[in-house]
């Protein structure tokens, strides 16, 4: 884990090839100003990448470009060190290797049964039907939707539809999972389910890219954060680097993660030693406070003994 983090922060110096190397990517919608204005980005194998940025900053357009659904006007995409052209073979390769879970499952789900839906991607990958069947069942099991297998998608709740949409992509066995604003319009239970899925996927070493507006989520989850603004990447770095950077936060209209603000205040009030690491999740925060109390009890205990 820490190896990975080092790799990510020092990726520029690294001589290993990234899983995906994007250089100078430009894209303009017809009759519109540039939606993407020269994107340079390396995505490393196994990393957890969060993409922040206001609506219309170009995140979704960027994803569709990665996948070859939108054809870039300029720039290059390298997958595993191989430059991808825009011919059919390479496009299919990109679509097989990069799976996008779209924001609204209702814009993604096409089949009339859940099983049919999950099998759609693998069927297009032209693998033997038996293998498709195995993958489909495994993906449904994974997302806990087997009991809906023969149901029509429109009778599912939105949380269940989201699970179907994720199973769609899992069944394709992509190298990179992209989640476009996955927690938008989900209730707390479904959001929690989603974070569990993200954690499990990255525990298996998959590469995950998530676009989000939730800074607290990005802070606790991501290895690395990319900030988009007006079709450009204005900053990238570890969560701490990004959220300590006032200029970036201001430019992208982001606020500090709550936990960071709280910890900083506790530090300046002297309640937490300056030297301790900032906890990135509530669990880590609780652990830290427990350790601190245990520590202070110990010192007072020894103090009492000495005076006696």
């Amino acid at each position: 884990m820490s190896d990975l983090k080092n790799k990510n922060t020092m990726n520029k110096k690294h001589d290993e090839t990234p899983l995906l190397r994007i250089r100078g990517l430009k894209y303009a919608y017809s009759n519109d100003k540039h939606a993407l204005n020269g994107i340079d980005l390396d995505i490393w194998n196994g990393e957890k990448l969060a993409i922040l940025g206001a609506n219309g900053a170009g995140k979704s357009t960027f994803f569709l470009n990665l996948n070859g659904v939108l054809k870039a006007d300029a720039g290059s995409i390298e997958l595993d060190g191989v430059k991808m052209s825009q011919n059919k073979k390479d496009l299919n390769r990109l679509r097989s290797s990069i799976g996008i879970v779209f924001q609204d499952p209702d814009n993604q789900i096409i089949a009339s049964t859940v099983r049919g839906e999950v099998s759609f991607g693998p069927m297009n990958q032209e693998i033997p039907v038996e293998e498709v069947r195995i993958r489909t069942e495994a993906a449904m099991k994974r997302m806990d939707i087997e009991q809906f297998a023969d149901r029509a998608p429109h009778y599912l709740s939105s949380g269940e539809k989201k699970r179907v949409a994720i199973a769609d992509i899992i069944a394709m066995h992509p190298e990179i999972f992209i989640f476009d604003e996955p927690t938008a319009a989900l209730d707390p239970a479904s959001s929690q389910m989603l974070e569990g899925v993200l954690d499990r996927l990255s525990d298996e070493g998959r590469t995950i890219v998530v676009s989000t507006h939730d800074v607290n989520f990005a802070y606790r989850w991501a290895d690395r954060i990319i900030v988009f603004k007006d079709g450009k990447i204005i900053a990238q770095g570890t969560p701490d680097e990004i959220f300590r950077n006032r200029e970036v936060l201001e430019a992208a209209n982001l606020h500090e993660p709550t936990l960071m603000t709280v910890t900083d205040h506790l530090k300046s009030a002297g309640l937490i030693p300056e030297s301790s690491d900032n906890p990135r999740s509530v669990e880590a925060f609780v652990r830290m406070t427990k350790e601190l109390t245990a520590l202070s009890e110990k010192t007072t205990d020894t103090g009492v003994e000495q005076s006696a």
Partner: protein
Amino acid sequence: MDPKMLIFLIPAAALAAGILIGTLKAGHHSHHHGMFGHKHGEATVSIDMYAFQSALYSLNPMFKTIYAITLLMLSVCMNNLYVSVLILLLSTFIIVVLGKLPFSRFLNLMTIPFVFLIVGTIVILLDFSWEPAAGALGSVHLFNFYINVTKTGLTTTVLLWGKCLGAISAMYMMSLTTPSGELFTVLERMHVPSLIIELMNMMYRFIFTMMDTQSRMKNAAESRLGYKDYRTSIKSFGSTASNLLVVSFKKANAYYDALESRGYDGRMHFLQEEKKAPGRERVLAVLSVVYLFAVFFVLR
């Protein structure tokens, strides 16, 4: 009474009793509201939903489809009231007792074709003439002409009703136990062109997403007094409809992106669960068809 009639009366009575007992039994532990009439736009959706809830849902769709089509053909081609009535009772028995659909809901669905049936056969039943027809069962004098009900008119009408209701109930038997997705697969196996199957698939999916969008827009308009009187209703309906068009274009785009990103190349293939061909049910189905033939030959 002709003893030959027993071949019709015994199974008819048995099926009717079965339906009655099944309905009474179900009535004890399930109370549902609304005997007749459904809310606006619910009919298509409810048929679709009943199929998923049917106790016969797990049966092989190919089998159900072939059986239903066989019954439909028998009802239409045999031109025999007894056969048709038996088919009507048999289908109702299968839907209500074996499929466990509440009888009132089935009755409710039957009212839809019933209206068409009444309107369609009224001209056959009634005979217009300048003079009272000889041998008419009844006639009404109106202005300077007569409306007669003749014996042939009546028998034709009754036969027609029997045939239609038998055929319709057979089709309901299929659609109330088999979800659309499975029907598409059956059609595919019957070598219907894949383009048509894909279109059906997409239409089926879009009916629901569009209905969803429409009802949301309607609610939004309603909550802003958009339907307070006739005039505004018309106006709101118009803007909702035109908006729906715009939304469907947008949605179509979003859909296409999502399809492409999963490698869509113009052909749509889905995995479908193989439901095993039934054993006992198949035997019963064949027996019932054989029996209907027997009725046809005995009571011709």
